């Protein structure tokens, strides 16, 4: 394994990080949307969302990815590895985010909402100005936790041919007949990213507990 190989894995890391960020950024608002649909108890739709979340929480990402990658072209929707990867990540993380958002929504004090109503705020305004800032704060640790989980499943994307950290490592391992070093480099790239997110989550939780203790 030489410097060029390390560089190839680093290039893979750029792909991994880009895909993860894309998945997170799209998955966050969709998760919120799904949570609101369930919270507002929209008939039929809320039920469908509940079943969607239940199924997606049980589905391994690799299975979902293979389903999207092979089945969508089958029904006439052309999809490449990158799009399939992003779609799978978003579908997966949106379901978990939905649960995090929903838990905060359920905890949201009803009297505050009614107070906003009593001063004549419209429903969208109430949500944007009163509810959202507070549930965002409340959901933050859970959402960061979900981000670290999402990053930990991204090696799966290599299965459909995305040239990420893992695929680069596998290729170098096959070429050099010594797979251990490239895998260790891959771990060395993943571990700090996940570690930062896990530490961030703990830091936010501690800060919020302290803030609550002062209040």
């Amino acid at each position, binding site marked *: 394994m030489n410097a060029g190989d390390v560089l190839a894995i680093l290039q893979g890391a750029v792909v991994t990080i880009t895909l993860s960020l894309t998945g997170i950024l799209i998955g966050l608002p969709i998760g919120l949307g799904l949570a609101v649909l369930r919270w507002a108890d929209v008939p039929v739709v809320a039920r469908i969302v509940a079943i969607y979340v239940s199924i997606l929480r049980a589905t391994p*990402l*690799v*299975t979902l990815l293979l389903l999207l990658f092979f*089945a969508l072209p089958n029904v006439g929707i052309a999809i490449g590895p990158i799009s399939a990867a992003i779609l799978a990540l978003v579908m997966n993380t949106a379901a978990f985010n939905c649960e995090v958002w929903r838990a905060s929504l359920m905890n949201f004090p009803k009297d505050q909402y009614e107070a906003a109503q009593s001063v004549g705020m419209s429903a969208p305004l109430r949500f944007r100005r009163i509810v959202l800032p507070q549930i965002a704060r409340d959901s933050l640790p859970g959402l960061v936790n979900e981000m670290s989980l999402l990053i930990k499943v991204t090696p799966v994307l290599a299965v459909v041919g995305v040239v990420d950290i893992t695929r680069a490592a596998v290729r170098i391992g096959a070429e050099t007949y010594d797979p251990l070093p490239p895998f260790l480099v891959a*771990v060395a790239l993943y571990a700090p990213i*996940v570690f930062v997110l896990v530490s961030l989550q703990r830091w936010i939780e501690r800060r919020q507990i302290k803030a609550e203790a002062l209040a």
Partner: protein
Amino acid sequence: MIHDFGIVWSERGLLLSGLGNTTILSVLSAAAALLLGFVLTPALMAKQRWLSRAVRGFVDGMRCVPFLLFAYIVYYGLPSLGVRLDNWTSGLVALTIYNAAYMAEILRGAWSAQPREPIEAGIAFGFSSVALFRRIVLPPLLLAAGPVIGNQMIQIVKDSAFLTIIALPELTHAASSIQSRHYVPFAAFITAVLLYWGLCLVIEAGVSSIDRLAAARR
């Protein structure tokens, strides 16, 4: 489309053996990880700093590593060090060691939240060693940790799907085989997804019955 599902039905033997293997893998490694967790947890809380730090390092380290990479290292990487395991052994070892780290942390959390006095009462009433652990310490601990252990079991089921990359004939691997043999991707994978869902619903039912037991005692 109906025809596609007909093809999947005709391959039900393969799919069911995949489901069976996923279940066996998950149950065996969950049980082993839990047992290993019970060994690691006291070490995590040990007074000897070197021991607790070493175990803490292992637990935190594992939680920062993607499972798929870990499985790759066990299957493809270890032979470089002269350790060659077949795919079943690799899969079981990887799932067990990886999840033992999570189980240890779950048990530590539940353990340190347990009140000390009932355990002390156990000692005062003449319980010692194994009987004390089995009759007094363990039952409330499992009731408290049950739901989180259940969540981790769902995680194990999902992690086991990654083992398709080392050609372990579990559920996702079975669905892949059917799809490549007959080119029925949607029917094959959606069936697999529904079977995973069923497996998780069974685990969740188990969790909620533990939860009912715990709620009656809270």
